[in-house]
């Protein structure tokens, strides 16, 4: 059975507009699943729905988010928060804004362990030191006493990765974890995430618009367009023979998988028109136009 099972999740803006259209996807324990699609497709929205941080303007109108056998959407808010905090984590996109500038690094790693998981402080600090060493940060004790502005972007992303793994979560959502970084640092951070994922056996929902990166990190992937799942495939199958024409166009638009600047070749207009028609048809079937 899958650790995370999203079942026909529909999210809409309160003011009108659909962000996710009956999205279904599964992530098995220890699986790394890529979530790809163009900007605005709703990739981040899926991660936010799982973690319970949807924007105030958005609401879940139907569907289930089943985490470890429990539908999160049926839980009272406090219970849901606690459950998600204890078993999931987020690796954010921009390490420069994801750490609180007026708090030292140490407490920002240990706070979840102490406050949510009720560890004692000494044990939590020991754990933080251990993890900082795992993400190859020299002199963890010094770093834990630093404020974020005293550290580089790459260092901060390492810290955020360490912090995400601190509570030994079963699932981590990584939302374009390298996009905000220097190209030279990107590779190291990707390698590090993969290394940590393997060591801890954590399931990963890996949001990216870079198929090249996805091909290296993920075992399976879900292709999203306008909040709708177009294709769900194993990584090998997908790169051998994508089933959906839009996926094929995306793949064709990323010639070498490796060149980060190559994703700019546009998807052909005919393919886009077909996908839009497909979305509209799905909307009509669902009865919400």
């Amino acid at each position, binding site marked *: 059975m899958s650790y995370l099972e999203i079942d026909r999740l529909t999210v809409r803006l309160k003011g009108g507009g659909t962000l996710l259209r009956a999205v279904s996807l599964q992530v098995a324990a220890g699986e790394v699943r890529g979530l790809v699609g163009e900007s605005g497709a709703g990739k981040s929205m899926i991660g936010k729905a799982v*973690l319970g941080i949807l924007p105030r303007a958005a609401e879940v109108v139907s569907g289930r988010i089943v985490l470890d056998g429990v539908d999160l959407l049926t839980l009272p808010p406090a219970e849901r*928060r606690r459950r998600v905090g204890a078993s999931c984590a987020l690796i954010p996109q921009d390490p420069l804004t994801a750490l*609180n*500038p*007026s708090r030292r690094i140490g407490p920002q790693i240990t706070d979840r362990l102490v*406050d949510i998981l009720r560890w004692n402080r000494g044990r939590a600090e020991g754990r933080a030191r251990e993890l900082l060493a795992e993400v190859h940060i020299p002199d963890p004790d010094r770093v834990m006493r630093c404020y974020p502005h005293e550290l580089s972007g790459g260092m901060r992303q390492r810290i*955020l990765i360490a912090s995400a793994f601190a509570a030994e979560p079963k699932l981590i959502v990584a939302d374009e974890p390298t996009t905000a970084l220097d190209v030279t640092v990107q590779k190291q951070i990707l390698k590090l995430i993969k290394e940590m994922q393997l060591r801890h056996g954590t399931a990963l929902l890996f949001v990216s618009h870079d198929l090249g990166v996805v091909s290296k990190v993920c075992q399976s992937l879900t292709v999203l367009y306008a909040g709708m799942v177009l294709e769900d495939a194993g990584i090998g199958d997908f790169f051998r023979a994508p089933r959906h024409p839009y996926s094929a166009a995306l793949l064709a638009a990323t010639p070498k998988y490796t060149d980060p600047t190559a994703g700019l070749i546009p998807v052909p207009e005919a393919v886009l028109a077909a996908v839009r028609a497909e979305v509209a048809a799905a909307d009509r079937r669902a009865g919400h136009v």
Partner: protein
Amino acid sequence: MRLLQSVLVRLATTAVTLFGLAVIVFVVIRVVPGNPVAMMLPPGATEADVARLSALYGLDKSIFQQFLIWAGGVLQGDFGTSITARQPVLELVLGRLPATLELSIMALIIAIVIGGLAALTGTRLRGTRVEGGIDVANGVALSVPDFLWGLVLILLFGVLMPVFHISGRVTPSLELPFVTEFYLFESVVRLRFDLWSDIVAHMFMPALALAIPLSAIIGQLLKQSLKETMHLDYVTLSRTKGYGETHVILREALPNAALPTLTLVGVQFTFLIGGTVIIERLFSYEGLGNMAIDAVINRDLPLIQGIVILFAVIFTGVNLFVDMMYAALNPRLRHA
């Protein structure tokens, strides 16, 4: 080291500012019509009487000479003698300063508590009617000046529902064992809560009147600042850790949102101290502001000069303190 250097620079600029201010005040109060000596003499005094008394207070010399004499005295800690009270200005002014300081600080504390609670409640309940109510209350509090709040309070709690005293600093018939003029502070230190409650009952309305507009400013700015901070990534990240709304606001957002508010509170606090002049008059509160008005009415030139300089020293002191607080609370400045 850097801190010491910047404090020294600030002190130097402050000295220059104070000197300029002293010159301006000195000249202005001598140029405006109204002769202090004529006001002291009984009607029917002769020209010769006026001249004699003027000479006694040195007012027959040129403004330039008068200034040199006054400045020379100030440098030795002598601010001259009050014409009406016939006591050293410094003694008079320092005697009244504690009353005004206690009033201002009490008002500041009330403003921070009310404004802070309004901002935090409004943020916690954003999008609800409570937030709308807080915004309206802030708007009203801000559009009415402090002395009108004073009148409203007198009407409400002095006349209609007399729970507080409307005049003075302490009930005159009480025996005061105090050695300083800091009545409120000393009553706590001496554990004389009977006196303390009497002093608070006198101070509460003027302090509240001064505090209401400032609390609205603090409330609005802090709420706006919190609103922006609540969207930041580190706040969202803290939510994914399992923290609830209240915790997220207090620990993640508030410390960062409070910094810009702090600077503004410093500036506004000096306005509040300025506001004590009218409020003290309104509530017959025996502080510096009340004394300043009497000094102006009586053309008590040395006393006016002394009070103005003291107010200026307080203002710059407050600003310096706020800047240092800002540096102390902001880790980015602390380590820069």
